[in-house]
């Protein structure tokens, strides 16, 4: 790879290969820090809150939520789409950027993929819990049965089931395949017997032979090829939940590209949120450098702008179509009772990311962190606006209603945060957060000091 002298290096601090291994394995070694304990305690607490909310929902009923005869989905599907969106960055980074040979992805792909997997788990939880009869949720699968019951392949909800499951499985395999050489490294460095045994098992007998490496590379490439269209398909299919319906504000052909770019947008924002903290907390600032952060902010500018254009296009089409219901739906979004949600969405998603055009802003970690939070909030509100404001005033004004969330719904949402952070914190302790093997491949080409040949 040609290294431009003006291009900033991807690994700083003049690292050697052994240093890289040491640095990246450092967070896994020894006892966890106090912060880790605080973090895991908070996360588990949130998880328990979620468990209570699950109990209320399953035992008492969906009535513990704020839904009504008009608004059948609200926080549940908002959270679902939001988490799915977040789950887009990981695979996008690993698969699409791999295919496009973006080397900067190497230091962030591992954690982004882990984040993806956890986010998909969080996402998948909502369609499950939103079922009125969750115990019969297995009806959703086309399993052979004596009653000749079959699922309805016309339903976008069913497409979701397949899309999400496929995406999760492919992402999981992709992530794990990428982990194998690193697990082997952990195995080699492990001191305790048990630890060694576990990682030995997990590493599938990786020795680092050339044959293994070639196969590994091939599998990675194939999986990347498989995963890349999935990145596009998952959110396209999620958007079909709305696009194929008849509800004004949902029934929109622009949804698939709009949802996909929104997903990448929110996914990158979440990666930023996490990594800005993680690189500091785990001393990985030399691996996840400003250049990485900057690259990600650029993706955010692009996708954020697409999302912004989509918002405006929706308005244009509402006017251009001449459909009075559609026109009302969009005016109602902007000026109706939920206008505040709409303007939060517009501000957070359209205006704030544009600040990244300014280099000073996109290189200031604190500001990037704040803006990434804004984008997370904005994208949550985007789904809320699409779902709730479209439903609450549709065709017949007699049925118009308002929606207010309840503590149970908050509990479920907080619960998924609990799950997310619990699993992420466990991931930090269990696996290298940066792909050691992969980052070593860019070291030669993109470092700020000449390499020293000191293998240990």
């Amino acid at each position: 790879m040609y290294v431009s002298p003006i291009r900033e290096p991807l690994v700083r601090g003049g690292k050697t290969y052994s240093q890289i291994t040491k640095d990246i394995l450092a967070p896994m070694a020894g006892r966890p820090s106090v912060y880790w304990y605080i973090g895991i305690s908070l996360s588990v607490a949130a998880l328990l809150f979620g468990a209570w909310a699950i109990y209320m929902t399953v035992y008492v009923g969906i009535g513990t939520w704020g839904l009504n005869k008009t608004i059948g989905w609200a926080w549940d599907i908002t959270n679902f789409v939001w988490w799915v969106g977040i789950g887009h960055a990981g695979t996008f980074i690993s698969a699409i950027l791999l295919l496009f040979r973006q080397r900067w992805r190497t230091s962030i792909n591992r954690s982004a993929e882990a984040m993806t997997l956890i986010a998909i788990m969080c996402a998948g939880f909502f369609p499950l819990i939103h079922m009125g009869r969750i115990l019969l949720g297995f009806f959703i699968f086309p399993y052979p049965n004596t009653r000749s019951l079959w699922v309805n392949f016309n339903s976008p909800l069913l497409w979701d089931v397949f899309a999400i499951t496929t995406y999760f499985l492919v992402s999981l395999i992709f992530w794990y395949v990428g982990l194998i050489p690193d697990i082997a490294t952990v195995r080699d460095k492990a001191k305790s017997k048990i630890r060694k045994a576990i990682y030995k098992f997990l590493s599938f007998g990786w020795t680092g032979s050339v044959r293994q490496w070639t196969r590994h590379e091939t599998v990675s490439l194939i999986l990347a090829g498989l995963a890349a269209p999935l990145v596009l398909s998952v959110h396209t299919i999620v958007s079909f939940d709305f696009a194929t319906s008849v509800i004004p504000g949902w029934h929109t052909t622009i949804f698939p590209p709009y949802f996909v770019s929104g997903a990448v947008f929110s996914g990158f924002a979440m990666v930023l949120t996490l990594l800005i903290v993680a690189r500091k907390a785990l001393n990985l600032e030399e691996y996840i450098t400003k250049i990485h952060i900057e690259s990600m902010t650029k993706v955010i500018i692009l996708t954020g702008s697409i999302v912004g254009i989509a918002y405006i296009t929706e308005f244009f089409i509402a006017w251009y179509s001449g459909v009075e219901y559609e026109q009302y739906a969009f005016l109602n979004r902007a000026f109706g009772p939920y206008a505040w949600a709409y303007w939060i969405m517009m501000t957070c998603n359209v205006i704030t990311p544009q600040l990244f055009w300014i280099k000073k802003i996109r290189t200031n970690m604190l500001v990037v962190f704040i803006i990434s939070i804004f984008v997370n909030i904005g994208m949550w509100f985007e789904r809320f606006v699409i779902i709730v404001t479209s439903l609450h005033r549709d065709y017949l004004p007699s049925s118009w209603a308002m929606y207010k969330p309840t503590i149970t719904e908050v509990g479920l949402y907080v619960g998924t945060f609990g799950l997310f952070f619990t699993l992420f914190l466990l991931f930090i302790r269990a696996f290298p957060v940066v792909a050691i093997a992969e980052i070593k491949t860019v070291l030669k080409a993109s470092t700020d000091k000449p390499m020293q040949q000191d293998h240990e």
Partner: protein
Amino acid sequence: MEKKYVRSIEELQLDEPRLDQPAGDRQFILGMEKEVKKMSSTTRRDFLKTFGFTIASAAIASSCEQPVRKAIPFLIQPEEVMPGSASYYASTFYDGVDYCSILVKVRDGRPIKIEGNTLSSITKGGTNSRTQAAILGLYDNERLKFPMENGSETTWEQIDEKILDELEQIKAKNGTIAILTPTIISPSTKAVLNTFEEAYPNTKIVAYDAISSAGILQANKAGFGKAFIPSYRFDKARIIVSFDADFLGSWLSPIEYTKQYVKGRDLTQGQRKMSRHIHFEGNMSLTGSNADHRVQVKPSQQKLVVASLLNSLRLASGQATITAPASPIETSLLALELLEHKGAALVVSGSNDPEEQMMVNAINELLDSFGNTIITEKHLKVRQADDQALKQLIHDMEANKIDALLVYDVNPAYDYYNSKAFVNALTKVKLTIAMTVTDDETTALCTYVCPDHHFLEAWNDFEVYTGHYSMAQPAIRPIFNTRAAHDSLLRWAGIEKDYRSFMKDYWQEHLFTASLADLSFTDFWNKRVHDGVFDTRKTENGLTHFDPTASIEALSQLKAPASNGLDLLLYTNVSVGSGKHANNPWLQELPDPVSKVCWDNYVAISPRLAKELDLKDEQLVRINGSDPLPILIQPGQEYKTLGVALGYGRERAGKPANGVGRNMFGFQQNGGDTLLAFVEDVKLEKADGTLAIARTQSHHSMEGRSIVRETTLEEYLTDPQSGNEIRKEIQEHLKTLYPKIEYDGLHWGMAIDLNACTGCNACVVSCSVENNVPVVGKEQVIMAREMHWIRIDRYYTDDMDNPELVRQPVMCQHCDNAPCENVCPVAATTHSNEGLNQMAYNRCIGTRYCANNCPYKVRRFNYFDHTGADAFKGNRYDPVEMTTDLRRMVLNPDVTVRAKGVIEKCSFCVQRIQDKKLLAKKQNRPLRDGEVIPACAQACPADAIVFGNLNDKNSKVSKYYADARNYHLLEELHTLPSVGYLTKVKNKTV
């Protein structure tokens, strides 16, 4: 161990270690052998044993939670009872306020539904919400279950002994016994009371009506020399002027009047004429909201308008006018219009002021209404009580002149305007006996409680109009240890006969003679019991001459109201009515046809006044220092009139009713001779706090969408499609690439004539009864989670101070291209080959996607376990006790009781369709048009709903579909609904 057979020689050889092999190999082979043995130690049989045991024990373990439900079949099959098929018994609903001739549907010994009796020439098969809901009164949790003395259980023998003893003592000392009853329209009951009177000569029978019509009675006494209520013929009137008479909702005989009113306005058979309805009122009532022209008038000034109309009419008919205070509304044009239709005009007033009624009589006289639109020879027998009678009785009670008080079927401790006086006076009476069906405020104060049968458990008869009789027969054996009040009275009068024999004898003696067609009395009796109605065609004589003297006197003595302050108008709504059935959750959850509020009464206030006083919805206020009531801004409310419904604020009615709303009966004014339902010059003051009001519709504008389409008669006559022009345009745009679905057999469809629908809500209750629709309670209605399968949308048009109002019943539209069907992931909602949109509750997993995607928002989700059908125990959400064992007896066994977490919706009463299809099949004939009637259509007193086969071009529904007025709701979405609406036509001068 079973015998082992060898499969091959090699296998056999394994048993013999081959010694020629090296030791290591031998070891290996031996090891293998062991392995093989070990493997085979679990044989197929063992596996099956274990498997069977595991499955059986798992099944037992998991099934021990299941409750054992015993269903014991009849050892000897009762005659004429077919398990699983319903029997219908003719009966009559009369509660002292409403009258309706009914059929009671009995399934396996349980009455589960009330339908209108089509043989009745009065109600003609129509019902109203209260009649529909009355079935639940049979299973009221608060029913009195056994005789009681001082609140503790006793037996009939003991209680009879004690009561007889006391009655004898009173008789001995020549004391007075009073029997307090509602207006009795039953001739046999009257005879029973007479018998009692004969046994105890010093007996006073006092009739008392919670909702009084004494004003009409007195006016007719003055004008015709007899206190009576005539028969009004709204169908014969070309022009109807009503002064606050809510004749479609609560005035006198609303079911009958609705039938008549709608008949006079029907346009479905090419009629070119319809009646014109002008309505004066202060509140926005059901009737007023249906009027062609509605005029707001303060209740205290209504009399002035009536007087002015009388004067204008006199002027126009060349008579001298009489000086009267100025009317706030100009009436000369109205007078001319009325005179144009002389002989076909009808003016009615809902006021209980005799003077106003006298003037109305004079108006009707000038319009030639008597004999044409008002039949004075036929008397309506309900609400005959004199308002002063109870006052006098209380007076006597206080003066210790009454020794015994028998309370039969009335509740003055709740609904008398001066209930305190009654309660106080009651303590002075030594012997108090209550003969009521449910526990209530008055019953609680009586020493002896002799529970009466519910009307569905008892024999009775009624003479609702002169010569028009109807019957009530038991549809079930008494559920509790009750006894008909008649039997009690007969017993105490020393007569051994039971009421049935007594009644039969009465009919033989008095009514058999009127029937010429029947040969024997048994034939006669059986036929009347079967039909439920009997018309002797008897008329009252000598009541044709009207003497206007009193009316003119009333007019000349008319004074303008003293102040121009706020008026408080009390009204009865179509749900709880007088409050007698307030303990009925169906009625409590029934949204008011105008305000769409349920579970409360409230102060209706005009938007203008609310703005002036800075009052918002739900703000608590006090009227003349009353208990706080919430404000509800009611478009169309007269500027200075406050309206509050009666019938709320029960204290001892049961969980659904207690503490719901405020009791307003105390506000009725004793205006001289009659009780007036309005109070002049009330003070309205803000109280602290707010009270959340439950309403099923919170947005009141159509937002310019063509949802309810209407036109005027004039435009309709020039172009039948007027108001519906957009349909053509929509149909031209409906294009599809997909082949049109053809239904080769039946294709069910429904048509609703918006011009007929008055919005009375009978369909809503009927649907809930038929389809086991859960009641969710106030909190859940506030959350917008009511479960009604059919709702009546109501929109205001024009300005909020004087809006017009349109209504539209909306249920599942059974779209042939249903948006709900294709989104269900598990195919729980599918389309039948007869065009029905079906729900398989068993299959539903509750994603609510269908509800979201329904443009009509008719799908309802079971947010909680409202029915007890959930798999989990202890999570039932039943705030109004609808799932007690007693209440559950009303459930329709033909309709699944839905569990928590499933979607439900209108099925077009598929159980009724199947039932009639089976019947037709058994009789080997095609289904007839109109044979299948869904619950909503059957209940409708206006016959606004038509159901049938769209493939049959001669069916009524097909004819409606072919009408130029027909349109489909949101047709532009290409959902292809199977419900059509006929545009509303208003007869207004443009």
